[in-house]
């Protein structure tokens, strides 16, 4: 399970947690999130702008 971060506002999409409000239940893979899905916090970046968060 990976995490992806919005490079504008820092919002993190965590595949393990999903994002229920946006219709992505826990475990939803990043590949299943639509390409034009906008960051739910700032809306000025889309999925394809997100960067993978490397594990510590």
């Amino acid at each position: 399970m990976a995490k992806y971060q919005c490079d504008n506002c820092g919002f993190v999409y965590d595949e393990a947690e999903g994002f229920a409000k946006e219709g992505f239940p826990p475990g939803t893979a990043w590949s299943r999130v639509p390409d034009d899905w906008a960051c739910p916090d700032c809306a000025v970046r889309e999925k394809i702008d997100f960067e993978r968060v490397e594990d510590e």
Partner: protein
Amino acid sequence: MHSTTMASSHSYSDSKRYWWLLGLVVPTLPFGSYLLVEATGWGVLWFWPIVFVYGLLPALDWYIATDQDNPPEVAVPDLENDRYYRWIVYLFIPLHFAAFVLSGWVFVQGGLVWWEALGVALSLGAVSGLSINTAHELGHKKGDGERWLAKLALAPVFYGHFFVEHNRGHHKNVATPDDPASSRMGESFYAFLPRTVFGSLRSAWQLEKTRLARLGKGPWTLQNENIQAWLMSVVLWGAMLVWLGWLALPFLLIQSVYGFSLLEVVNYLEHYGLVRQKTESGRYERCGPEHSWNSNHVVTNVFLYHLQRHSDHHANPTRRYQALRDFEEAPQLPSGYAGMILLAYLPPIWRRVMDRRVVEHYNGDLTRANLHPPKRAALLARYSQTA
């Protein structure tokens, strides 16, 4: 000059820190009217908040110098986390609700002649219009609490879908032909107003419909944030009607229509004629400093929580108002938003002042501007020789 950019976080002090309290003057204006009329017996003083917005703010902008003070980046985390700045925004909401109740009561029970009652409703409408700016600041924040307060602030003016559309629609599509809330060169305010009002409503509904479809639901659910926000208005307006009777209805409608029209005239001047170019991939370029009209006129900036530092707001929508920066390369309006509103109401004067600024911004190449389709050919012909 940005004199503070070299300072450390410890040495930075916000020169506007206590001036931000002036934002709270706005919802108290109707109380001021009430006291002034009580003291003098002059019914014309019911219009005091209107005079404040259209007269006093532009005059003070004209008189008082601009302010280009930017916080240094190291000071921003402390500045953003200082809860003082949040609380003075939150306090706007109960004061606005109190003014709403007082004004509705005076409108119905005050024994006013028709034009005095109109003054009361329009004056509260001015406060409701400015409350959308308060909701705007809160709606961009990440916490559920502030987002809930944003919807609450939009309840009196019955414009709750703004919370949905502005954040997820306008910010995504700003300065493109797809955005109903970005005005086009050659488009008068009166052409823009119905396009933005109905276009934003449609966009807000569509955004929630799309989100809810991913949840396997239709749009007619209490999870629809438009419906949540509208229901707050239904409850509030319903309570006023039960308490004051049907005579409260004209009050509610006048303050709402005038209030959201005040918001939309500000929308009109924020991006007039500016457009993001398409990149090779077919996406629009990112929103940059060059895609918003800015102003450093300090009086309107204080009353609108730095809304006029609009380029930074669009680049960083979640940044709190006290931390927004002036960008020297951003297009500047000749006056603060308060003064520019007056010009927007008078399309020939607006065009005389603004069209040449759009032309200059694009170095004479209007094919790169956001043009009103019915005026496109005429504008290109008229300004082609300056290219």
